[in-house]
């Protein structure tokens, strides 16, 4: 391989007619492509000198076969010059800044210097159209200049004043070309043009390059007919018109006809270069579809740059809907049999594995069920020929294979695959899982790995990739496997952990104290790989009982820690062991002594226990802990059952009475304050107007009223209520959601203020003008369960819409922000000497993060986890 070279400079220029003729291997004169025998016409658009695409033929220029010949350019001599659409703006500028007679720039050397600066002290500015005044006199030859009009796409004309009337006089491309030729080289430099590589007359085409056939291959349809590429179609048009033009010219046709043909030729060349020019009807295929010409090949999402160069498609990948399966390990992925039968891994045949591989070949391309051994789809002979396995050749091929062959074996349990969900915003969006072949049509994954992928199961799809080489598989297992990625480099804590029902389940299991019989304890622990049951916690009436904390302790590794659970209320003085909420968690020697396990302990993003297990016992043990935990918590939640219905929001008569009273008092309070305001007695708060003060007071009163209804409802609904369990354990929702369901929805707001928009001085025609009362400005005193009245419903929709718009705007903005940041950072890496460098070896940081510390290996930012060490030694909180 040649060594990489540093690029010194890149020069951009125009192709001169001379260069076009020099690089051309053949002049093209015939519009036809193939003759009746299907052989390319010499000097036609498919000339054999331009390269070959049909197998069996050889290129006349380089004598190579179809796949080897890169193709060669030809050229068409145009009857008259035409404008290149891509340069119309440059042409317009040059026509406007140069003299129509002598071709010099319409500025004196002093005026040029004013803009460009002297040779030693350049301003970095270039001459622009604005620097030249319209219709002035040339400072070099004294010629009166005319106004140049430009009409899209390619028409230029001069405005001549005749008998006091303005008359447009059209400039032909030949006229323009003649004027461009007159511009001297030294006048081009202040215009920003390097005359050595880009003479302005080259923007007017006199000869057109014909791209090689390899970049416009024809395809043969099923009925044997040839279908030509869009570019070929367009070139055919150009040659036809060009030919007719020449004939008419030679025959001395009238000026009118010549002009028409010239315009037609201009149209065809224009659409050949760009078929989406403003003011030009796009050239269409016979079917009515616009042709995809040169510019369309490059532009846009599916163009050459974004579609082919920055983005590519891959083989050995698959995509389907995902669904949950808590019985899988977090490091596994359930793969449908149909997918596993299609995707393969190449295995080289050796004397050690030949029998096994023979068996896979005998099984063939269809594996009958998930438990049967995998089959194979192809074998590759030592000469690199592929044999497809079908029902007819299984046994013959199985007998043929010998060391040196390669068998493309199907996926089977335990294979390493990469699993990905878009948008891939961080490195945990692609992780390596172990295959578990399953029936069904969806990818299955443990819900605990949803947070890193940001996946849910409302129809999300994910992609799977099968690494094909031993190196790729090693890299996947060592760097990308799930248990290597439990910690997020974003905040140095675990991103994988219990979610939703895992948290509710483990909360219900470990809260307070409960006793289980042997059967019950085993039901809970059966799937967690427990080898021995501990000594029973108590014996009563000859029966053995185990406590809920004992049950949970079975899945814990040996560790010591003390912390406060999510359900902790942050009392001023912590009651510690006497906490009535059981929120003070103590784990001594791997035994849960007290406290409730919830989101803070095992949840994704928090997971204190998970974090401690990783620090002290390693990633593998943590992955096992999460596996055991998900299984235990699912059994725990199934033990009691967990559901939520409309009657779970029911309160008793006393509560409804209290809520009504709170809301009534709040409404009275609001009217009272409005009265004070209307009497002019209201004292404004510092820095606010009287109106603002009133609004703030009303918001405050109503907010307090809603909170009170929540407290009243909360008094009635205890831990027997599923929504309370979810809110307290941190699994989902908050007490506010519960308040809104059972108590009162509260004030709806737009931009943090009460709703004021609508009609003149009122929000809806249902209210009096100038009404400042609570219900006229979006206070909803009903609950979701009680139901809203029509005006309340309308206000609720207003408030809800603002939320939707906010999230939509936020996601698009933050997405773009992240994209720009990634574009700036993507090629940086940490060198072996600890510096952060760009690909050019330039230093960005002298030490990574200035402290050389990997955030995933630090304890929430600190290099040493002092708290963890002290706790594990003292077995006490520090």
């Amino acid at each position: 391989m040649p060594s990489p070279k540093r690029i010194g400079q890149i020069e951009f220029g125009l192709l001169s007619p001379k260069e076009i003729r020099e690089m051309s291997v053949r002049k093209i004169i015939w519009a036809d492509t193939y003759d009746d025998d299907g052989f390319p016409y010499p000097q036609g658009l498919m000339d054999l000198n331009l390269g070959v695409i049909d197998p069996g033929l050889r290129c006349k220029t380089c004598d190579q076969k179809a796949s080897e010949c890169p193709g060669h350019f030809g050229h068409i001599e145009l009857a008259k010059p035409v404008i290149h659409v891509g340069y119309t703006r440059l042409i317009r500028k040059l026509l406007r800044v140069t003299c129509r007679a002598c071709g010099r720039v319409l500025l004196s050397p002093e005026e040029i210097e004013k803009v460009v600066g002297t040779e030693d002290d350049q301003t970095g500015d270039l001459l622009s159209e604005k620097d030249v005044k319209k219709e002035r006199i040339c400072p070099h030859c004294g010629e009166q200049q005319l106004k140049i009009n430009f009409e899209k796409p390619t028409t230029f004309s001069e405005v001549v004043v005749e008998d006091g009337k303005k008359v447009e006089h059209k400039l032909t491309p030949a006229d323009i070309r003649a004027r461009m030729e007159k511009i001297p080289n030294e006048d081009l430099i202040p215009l920003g043009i390097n005359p050595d590589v880009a003479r302005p007359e080259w923007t007017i085409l006199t000869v057109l390059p014909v791209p090689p056939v390899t970049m416009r291959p024809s395809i043969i349809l099923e009925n044997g007919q040839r279908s030509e590429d869009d570019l070929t179609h367009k070139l055919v048009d150009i040659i036809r018109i060009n030919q007719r033009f020449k004939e008419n010219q030679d025959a001395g046709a009238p000026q009118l006809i010549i002009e028409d043909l010239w315009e037609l030729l201009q149209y065809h060349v224009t659409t050949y270069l760009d078929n989406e020019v403003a003011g030009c009807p796009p050239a269409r295929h016979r079917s009515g579809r616009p042709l995809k010409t040169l510019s369309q090949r490059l532009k846009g999402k599916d163009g050459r740059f974004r579609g082919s160069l920055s983005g590519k498609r891959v083989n050995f990948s698959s995509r389907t809907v995902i669904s949950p399966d808590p019985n899988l390990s977090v490091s596994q992925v359930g793969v449908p049999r149909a997918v596993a039968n299609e995707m393969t891994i190449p295995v080289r045949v050796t004397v050690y594995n030949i029998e096994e591989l023979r068996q896979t070949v005998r099984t063939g391309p269809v594996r009958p069920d998930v438990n049967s051994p995998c089959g194979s789809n192809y074998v590759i002979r030592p000469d690199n020929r592929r044999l497809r396995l079908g029902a007819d050749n299984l046994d013959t091929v199985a007998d043929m294979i010998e060391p040196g062959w390669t068998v493309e074996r199907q996926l089977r349990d335990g294979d390493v695959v990469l699993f990905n969900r878009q948008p891939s915003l961080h490195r945990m969006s692609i992780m390596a899982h172990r295959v578990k072949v399953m029936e069904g049509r969806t990818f299955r994954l443990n819900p605990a790995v949803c947070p890193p992928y940001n996946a849910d199961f409302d129809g999300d799809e994910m992609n799977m990739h099968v690494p094909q080489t031993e190196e790729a598989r090693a890299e996947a297992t060592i760097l990308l496997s799930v248990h290597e990625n439990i910690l997020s480099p974003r905040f140095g804590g675990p991103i994988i952990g219990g979610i939703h029902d895992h948290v509710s389940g483990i909360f219900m299991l470990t809260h307070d104290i409960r006793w289980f019989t042997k059967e019950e304890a085993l039901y809970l622990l059966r799937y967690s790989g427990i080898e021995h049951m501990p000594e029973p916690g108590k014996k009563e009436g000859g029966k053995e009982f185990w406590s809920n904390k004992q049950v949970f302790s079975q899945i814990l590794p040996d560790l010591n820690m003390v912390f406060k659970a999510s359900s902790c209320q942050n009392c001023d003085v912590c009651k510690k062991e006497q906490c009535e909420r059981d929120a003070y968690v103590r784990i001594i020697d791997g035994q849960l002594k007290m406290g409730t396990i919830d989101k803070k302990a095992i949840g994704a993003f928090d997971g204190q226990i998970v974090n401690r297990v990783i620090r002290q016992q390693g990633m593998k043990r943590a992955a096992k802990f999460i596996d055991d935990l998900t299984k235990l918590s699912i059994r725990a939640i199934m033990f009691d059952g967990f559901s939520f219905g409309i009657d779970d929001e029911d309160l008793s008569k006393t509560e409804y009475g209290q809520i009504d009273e709170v809301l009534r008092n709040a409404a009275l309070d609001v009217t009272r304050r409005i009265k004070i305001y209307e009497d002019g007695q209201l004292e404004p708060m510092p820095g606010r107007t009287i109106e603002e003060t009133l609004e703030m007071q009303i918001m405050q009163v109503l907010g307090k009223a809603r909170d009170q209804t929540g407290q009243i409802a909360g008094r009635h609904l205890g831990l027997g209520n599923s929504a309370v369990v979810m809110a307290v354990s941190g699994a989902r929702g908050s007490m506010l959601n519960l308040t809104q369901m059972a108590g009162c929805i509260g004030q709806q707001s737009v931009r943090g203020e009460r709703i004021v928009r609508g009609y003149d001085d009122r929000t809806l025609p249902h209210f009096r003008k100038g009404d400042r009362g609570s219900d006229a400005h979006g206070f909803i005193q009903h609950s979701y369960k009680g139901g809203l009245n029509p005006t309340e419903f309308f206000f609720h929709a207003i408030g809800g819409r603002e939320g939707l718009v906010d999230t939509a705007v936020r996601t698009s903005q933050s997405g773009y922000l992240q994209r720009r940041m990634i574009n700036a950072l993507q090629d940086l890496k940490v060198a072996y000497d600890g510096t952060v460098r760009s690909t050019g070896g330039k230093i960005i940081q002298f030490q990574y993060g200035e402290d050389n510390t990997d955030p995933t290996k630090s304890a929430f930012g600190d290099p040493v986890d002092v708290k963890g060490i002290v706790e594990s030694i003292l077995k006490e909180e520090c």
Partner: protein
Amino acid sequence: MSTKLNVLEHAMVPDHKIMKDEEVSELLSRYNITTEQLPKIYHDDPAVREIGASADDVIRIIRASHTAGRAEAYRLVVKRPKK
């Protein structure tokens, strides 16, 4: 009293110092780089002007760091290009 502010005395401006030639060559050999690979700073940067550095000087900047407490950085003074 002069109204001109010495930016170096501002609490938010870290310590800028011109490095001696020996220090620079030691720095370059430590990281195995040329001066071109160093981060840059413009010659008309207020702090650079204040310490009187000119193009091709290397400046040592010692500043308080969130992560490390104290961090050293080195920058090559370059002329600000015209637009």
